[in-house]
């Protein structure tokens, strides 16, 4: 019989690590029962499970037990190791909340190998489309699938394609939007780097459907590895006859070219992106006309996000109905999120639409770092908003996030805990939009600047109550009057933080306090004499010589010299330094 291995890990972070106790228990028990030859215990770094108590995974059977108590050790050895029986009460049934569709190849195949992609079922959808389907049928499948754009706005993909298909023009274009300018977002980069052929396949299918023979990959220049991998994929596809004339022996011909984005956030906006490819300045234009009518070089153009296009091959291959079987009523399929912030396992996750935010943060992300409590979740980056903790059970889809005042956006998701200040957060995003505004229209250029100024005032403790009204008014004006999505949505973080956390704003304005201790002008460090053991550690660490005193007399902080770096607070072992 193969030797069993018991992998052991304490998945709780609240308690003292009990692994060593259990390790001893298991080892002793194995020795006492003379089973050392049959099984061994091993402590491991991570098991992919969180807050499930002490857990073991037994290989080769791959049995996982969680929530173990000391008394379970004997039972496990007796029944599972010796008796080969599964203990139902402790068994952990792994139900992964993730669903990998777009990312199914990412991390599994070699992104630089066409053969790998083919072996994973790649280009089967293309073959089906080119040799068996009419463009109308492709549109029909898309319609059935309910796929909506993953680039932010969630516009139904079939409608976009159908408009362009219906246009009578000898020249049409397909553009893949790989600009991904949201701070904190890297979903598209990962797809381009991990599975470039899937996006290529999506683009060729798009080209065939609308009757285009030329497509562009627009990728930001800061993504050199993505550019390299996509170029390699294009070269391979050309060589294999998957691009070029008479693809797969059909009458259809298509070519692809990469254009580098200059790295401005606004260049991800479709009309600005088109201008940028045309060699003009990347500034937005009023719509209509929409690109599907008059786009690149004034010709009908469809522009889709990387993730939208990467969905196409599996959608066509499995059929629209199958795609639509996942998700909520109006949002179908899966969504990739870049999970960051104060969450234990940050990373890229893909989930079915309709999963709750709580499941994403706690079941997949493993909960909040340092066991702090969660305050809110930010989605949609600088165009999005915050969702406070009381709405964590909301199922994620376009409509629900919109109702809560945020957006799905391209898929950034940031966990915010009690040490994050929401005024500070709003300020961060607004600063980003002010820096990135192209300046073409006044509401965005001037409004953004005014908003930022007001937020700075509040975070410095100089805010007044009427500033709140001003913030709301300017935000509203920007939403209504800005030319492009950047200006229209730039105030969303302000709006939504005021909507849910007005109290926190008021604390800054009235009490001149920052509850999270983030806004530097509003916090003061103090040494509490009764707790201070006069060790002098803070004195040694202060970078600005703001701590006065000696080991005999004790120490005080000079508020004028203090630069509020927080070092003294962090180094004091006796919690004698307070922050308020």
């Amino acid at each position: 019989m193969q030797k069993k291995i018991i992998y052991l890990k304490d998945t709780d972070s609240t308690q003292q690590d009990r692994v060593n106790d259990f390790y001893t228990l298991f080892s002793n028990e194995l020795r006492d029962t003379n089973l050392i030859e049959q099984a061994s215990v091993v402590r491991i770094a991570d098991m992919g499970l969180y807050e499930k108590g002490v857990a073991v995974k037994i290989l080769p059977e791959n049995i996982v037990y969680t929530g173990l108590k000391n008394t379970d050790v004997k039972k496990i050895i007796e029944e599972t190791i010796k008796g080969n029986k599964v203990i139902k009460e402790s068994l952990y049934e792994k139900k992964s909340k993730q669903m990998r569709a777009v990312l199914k190849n990412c991390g599994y195949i070699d992104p630089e190998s066409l053969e790998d992609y083919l072996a994973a079922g790649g280009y089967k959808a293309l073959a089906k489309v080119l040799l068996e389907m009419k463009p109308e049928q492709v549109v029909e499948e898309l319609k059935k699938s309910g796929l909506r754009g993953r680039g932010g706005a969630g516009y139904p993909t079939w409608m976009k394609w159908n408009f362009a298909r219906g246009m009578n023009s000898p020249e049409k274009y397909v553009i893949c939007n790989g600009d991904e300018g949201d701070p904190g977002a890297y979903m598209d980069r990962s797809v381009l780097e991990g599975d470039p052929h899937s996006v290529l396949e999506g683009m060729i299918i798009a080209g065939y459907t609308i009757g285009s023979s030329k497509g562009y990959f627009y990728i930001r220049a800061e993504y050199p590895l993505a550019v390299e991998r996509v170029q390699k994929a294009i070269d391979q596809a050309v060589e294999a006859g998957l691009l070029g004339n008479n693809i797969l022996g059909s009458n259809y011909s298509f070519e692809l070219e990469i254009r580098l984005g200059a790295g401005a956030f606004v260049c991800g906006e479709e009309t600005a992106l088109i201008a940028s490819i045309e060699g003009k300045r990347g500034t937005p234009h009023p719509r209509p006309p929409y690109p599907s009518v008059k786009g690149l070089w004034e010709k009908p153009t469809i522009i889709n996000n990387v993730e939208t296009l990467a969905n196409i091959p599996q959608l066509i291959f499995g059929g629209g109905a199958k795609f639509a079987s996942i998700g909520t009523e109006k949002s179908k399929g899966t969504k990739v999120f870049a999970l960051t912030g104060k969450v234990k396992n940050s990373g890229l996750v893909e989930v079915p639409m309709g999963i709750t935010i709580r499941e994403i943060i706690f079941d997949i992300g493993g909960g909040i770092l340092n066991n702090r409590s969660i305050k809110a979740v930010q989605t949609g980056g600088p165009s999005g908003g915050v969702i406070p903790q009381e709405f964590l059970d909301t199922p994620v889809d376009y409509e629900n996030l919109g109702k809560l005042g945020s957006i799905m956006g391209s898929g950034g998701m940031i966990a915010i805990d009690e040490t994050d200040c929401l005024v500070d957060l709003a300020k961060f995003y607004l600063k980003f939009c002010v820096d990135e505004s192209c300046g073409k229209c006044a509401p965005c250029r001037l409004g953004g600047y005014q908003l930022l100024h007001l937020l700075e005032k509040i975070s410095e403790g100089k805010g007044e109550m009427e500033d709140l009204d001003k913030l709301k008014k300017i935000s509203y004006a920007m939403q209504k009057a800005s030319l492009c999505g950047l200006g229209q949505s730039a105030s969303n973080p302000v709006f939504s933080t005021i909507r849910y956390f007005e109290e926190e704003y008021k604390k800054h304005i009235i009490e001149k306090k920052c509850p999270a201790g983030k806004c530097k002008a509003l916090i003061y460090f103090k040494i509490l004499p009764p707790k201070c053991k006069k060790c002098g550690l803070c004195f040694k660490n202060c970078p600005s010589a703001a701590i006065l005193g000696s080991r005999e007399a004790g120490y005080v902080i000079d508020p004028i010299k203090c630069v509020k770096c927080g070092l003294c607070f962090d180094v004091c072992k006796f919690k004698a330094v307070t922050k308020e």
Partner: protein
Amino acid sequence: MKKITKEDIEKIDPLKKDLGKSWIKVGMSTCGVAAGADEVYATLIEEAKKRNIEIDIRKCGCQGACSVEPLVEVNVEGLPKVLYGRVNKDVAITILERHVRNKKLLHDYIFEIN
């Protein structure tokens, strides 16, 4: 490469991507590379050759566990499939010697095991 046809696409063996029985995959997206995956990959290739260890070493994309990059997944016949996190040059060499050659796992770096 010759032009492929519909038949080629249909009949390609799906098992091909499964790389045989023993392999190592290194996550080589930007974040992996930033964390040093390039060096890990190069080390694995070089040291495997030096030590006469025969194993298929490949690149792959994002695995999702971005916070513990560089990630190296190892599958050796007879052992569970293991995902190692926070791998550096030294760990890479240990993987070759300990895991691949001596068929023992590196417990401290296991992040997922199946």
